[in-house]
């Protein structure tokens, strides 16, 4: 009886964790994810609406819409996703901590977040006024968390002087309104929404905190890239086309943004203004991420530069742009 | 101080849903217990012996009739009436000594005094060495001794005993009967004792009241004129026993309803 139970236990363990090795390889749908109401991911929505993926021969299925970057990375770790639009900070942390195996294949945007304080609180004028206050971030090791800490450090403040708590962006405006938090930092369109609702005002945009900072990237699961490189190329190509479409057809882009965020036109318009949509990769930007994340103690890397080379794969993009 | 108990015209009816289906327990009970007397009530099961005691103790109400203790009407629980239960009813979370003390505690007697008096009972009842034991550690006979001590320490004027030795084996039972007689002889309390054991009744009592089946009334009251200490096996004892048993048998065969 004991042997039977041990065998059953072993079998269960292997079945649960060992099945990765038995994945099939045929031309599959691409399981994609993005962040809820994150206007940074507009290119994805454009590509879906305009059928760019189909034209380029990729069968994209939106597997999940997540509330924050770390959740997307957990889904990668669980083998649920093939590609995703996600922040550079959470993806770096996940790969550095060996949770997920993804590579960055294209940039999605730079800038496009803001630190918002309550409109009524006119006494908070700059970052140092946040001392002793409570600020909400979408999660630990999100781009926004990163930006906030970096900015605080830059103002000479110690991180312990501010209460940083985690809230999902949909909850942030409500929390700000009733005074649960004194400020929040989130991706557009939430800062714009707080403004159009007259609940909050920008204390600092992310552009002011770190000009030109890389924000979201398009990542692919490493295994998926190895098995289906041509599919990944198709997706990146569609992304490039969509990004250029946003620049050429801003009105239509705004319409698509309204559809996918569910927010009003004024908010979406304002939000789109604050985002720089680009596919150009920045290794230097990633190096900054690696360095600061290490300083925060979120990751520990023996070879930071080697990591960056492994993490970012610029070849696919290069190949597409040279055509 | 012992008083006399008068029960007159006692009727007890348990109402039930159907109006003419009421259960009449007592038809008319009239009885007098003299000061210092040991009266035993015997009767068939279900005739309400226990109910009668509970009414006197104040645990149940009468439908009509009254009970007077030395002239005063009894109404509800009264410190003049003490009761010893068949199940001992000791507080399991209290050790032996605090169990005995309860009655004095309720009266507000200070701790030192309580303890001293309780210890007297411990000594008198042969319970030395067990003061700090919990009821679960005591034998049946010991538990009943504690229960009796608990009742007597409060100095009731009449002691009700509801088949107190019913759960004991016959050896212990005999021992306890002798024990009871010993204290009773010293203290001369008025005792109203209930049992279905005729032998016990004959051995212990001054008078024996025999009850009929329901609706219960007193069939006959016997005076037990045997000298104490009694011999269970004497001819007079046997004759009395036979008479009582015959009366009980007859009443069971021809119950009036």
């Amino acid at each position, binding site marked *: 009886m004991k042997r039977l139970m041990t065998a059953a236990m072993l079998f269960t363990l292997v079945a649960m964790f060992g099945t990765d090795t038995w994945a099939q390889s045929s031309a599959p749908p691409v399981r994609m994810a993005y962040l809820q109401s994150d206007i940074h991911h507009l290119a994805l929505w454009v590509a879906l609406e305009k059928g760019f993926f189909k034209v380029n021969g990729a069968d994209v299925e939106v597997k999940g819409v997540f509330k*924050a970057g770390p959740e997307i990375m*957990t889904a990668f770790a669980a083998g649920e996703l093939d590609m995703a639009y996600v922040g550079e900070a959470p993806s770096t942390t996940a790969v550095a901590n060996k*949770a997920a195996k993804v590579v960055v294949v294209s940039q999605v945007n730079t800038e496009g977040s803001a630190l918002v304080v309550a409109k009524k609180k006119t006494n908070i004028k700059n970052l140092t006024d946040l001392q002793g206050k409570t600020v909400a971030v979408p999660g630990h090791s999100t781009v926004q968390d990163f930006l906030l800490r970096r900015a605080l450090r830059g103002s000479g403040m110690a991180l312990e002087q501010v209460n940083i*708590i985690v809230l999902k962006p949909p909850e942030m405006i409500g929390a700000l309104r009733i005074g649960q938090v004194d400020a929040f930092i989130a991706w557009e369109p939430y800062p714009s929404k707080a403004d159009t609702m007259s609940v909050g005002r920008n204390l600092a945009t992310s552009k002011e905190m770190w000009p030109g900072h890389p924000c979201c990237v398009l990542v692919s699961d490493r295994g998926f890239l190895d098995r289906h490189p041509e599919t990944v190329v198709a997706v990146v190509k569609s992304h490039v086309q969509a990004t250029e479409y946003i620049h050429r057809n801003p009105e239509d882009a705004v319409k698509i943004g309204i559809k996918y965020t569910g927010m009003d036109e004024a908010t979406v318009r304002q939000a789109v203004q604050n985002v720089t949509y680009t596919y150009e990769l920045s290794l230097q930007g990633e190096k900054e991420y690696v360095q600061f994340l290490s300083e925060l103690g*979120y990751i520990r890397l023996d070879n930071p530069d080697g990591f960056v080379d492994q993490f970012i794969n610029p070849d696919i993009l290069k190949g597409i742009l040279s055509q | 101080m012992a008083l006399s108990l008068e029960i007159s015209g006692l009727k007890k009816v348990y109402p039930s849903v159907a109006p003419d289906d009421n259960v009449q327990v007592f038809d008319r009970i009239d009885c007098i217990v003299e000061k210092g007397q040991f009266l035993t009530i015997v009767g068939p099961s279900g005739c309400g012996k226990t109910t009668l005691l509970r009414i006197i103790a104040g645990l149940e109400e009468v439908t009509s009739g009254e009970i007077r203790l030395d002239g005063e009407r009894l109404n509800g629980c009264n410190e003049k009436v003490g009761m010893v239960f068949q*199940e001992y009813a000791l507080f399991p979370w209290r050790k032996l000594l605090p169990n005995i003390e309860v009655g004095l505690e*309720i009266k507000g007697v200070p701790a030192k005094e309580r303890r001293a008096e309780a210890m007297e009972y411990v000594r008198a009842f042969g319970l030395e060495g067990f003061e700090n034991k919990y009821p679960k550690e005591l034998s049946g006979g010991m538990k009943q001794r504690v229960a009796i001590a608990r009742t007597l320490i409060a100095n009731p004027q009449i002691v009700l005993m509801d088949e107190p030795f019913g759960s004991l084996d016959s050896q212990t039972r005999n021992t306890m009967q002798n024990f009871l007689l010993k204290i009773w002889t010293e203290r001369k309390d008025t005792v109203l004792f209930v049992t279905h054991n005729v032998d016990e009744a004959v051995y212990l009592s001054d008078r024996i009241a025999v009850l009929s089946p329901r609706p219960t009334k007193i069939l006959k009251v016997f005076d037990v004129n045997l000298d104490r200490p009694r011999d269970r096996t004497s001819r007079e004892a046997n004759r009395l026993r036979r008479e009582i048993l015959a009366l009980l048998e007859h009443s069971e065969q021809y119950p009036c309803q």
Partner: protein
Amino acid sequence: MSWKRLLPPVVLLLVWQGLSASGVIPEYKLPSPVAVAAGLLDLIRTGMPPGHRLHVHIYYSVQRVLWGYALALLAAIPLGIFMGWSRTLRNLMEPLVEMIRPVPPLAWIPLAILWFGIGGKSAAFIIFLGAFFPILLNTVSGVRSIDPVLIEAARVLNAGRRFIFLKVLVPGSVPSILTGMRIGIGIGWMTLVAAEFTGVKQGYGLGYMIMTARDIQRSDEIIAGMMVIGLIGLGIDACLRLAEQHLVKWR
């Protein structure tokens, strides 16, 4: 505790380590016992998030549970004794209790945050809800299960209501109350971690620690944290069992 009882967990640990080391179980899905031990050391020395060390998390969590639990005791035990004693009160309260009880404490989180804000108070409230009902129900049952003859014995001895209440009902229901207390703190402790997921202001708490470890993808620390939570729960239960044995020697 005989050595034989430790055998199955030890065997499980060895099997787990073997499967991890040989690569059958990938490291990121289920870290090996060795990795978890290293994660525990990290939690103790560096903390998660970095700078927030384990013992401070434990302090905050335990504090929240104690607050919620103490409130539950203060509310449930007296109410339970009265409900056990009075049929009228019981009939009055029972429908209300039976309606609220099945609602999981965690479902109260949005309301809790609205009433008490993000932070320790709402976490304590959630824990209060988790612990309250087992304590209440066990107290009621404890009072009702007191042998009625004990109450009658007290009445015959001319005990007043106060004596019966304090010196019969309360001591008589102690065993059940203790059982309810033990179940209550177990549920309270379990609810705590989830309650802390909603956000804690000071940035300390075991639930918060695990959430952060999740964000930073440190599954070794997640599991180490879970084990700490489990061990503390076990410790609390053991303490209460000891108290039970000591207080209820008369059973």
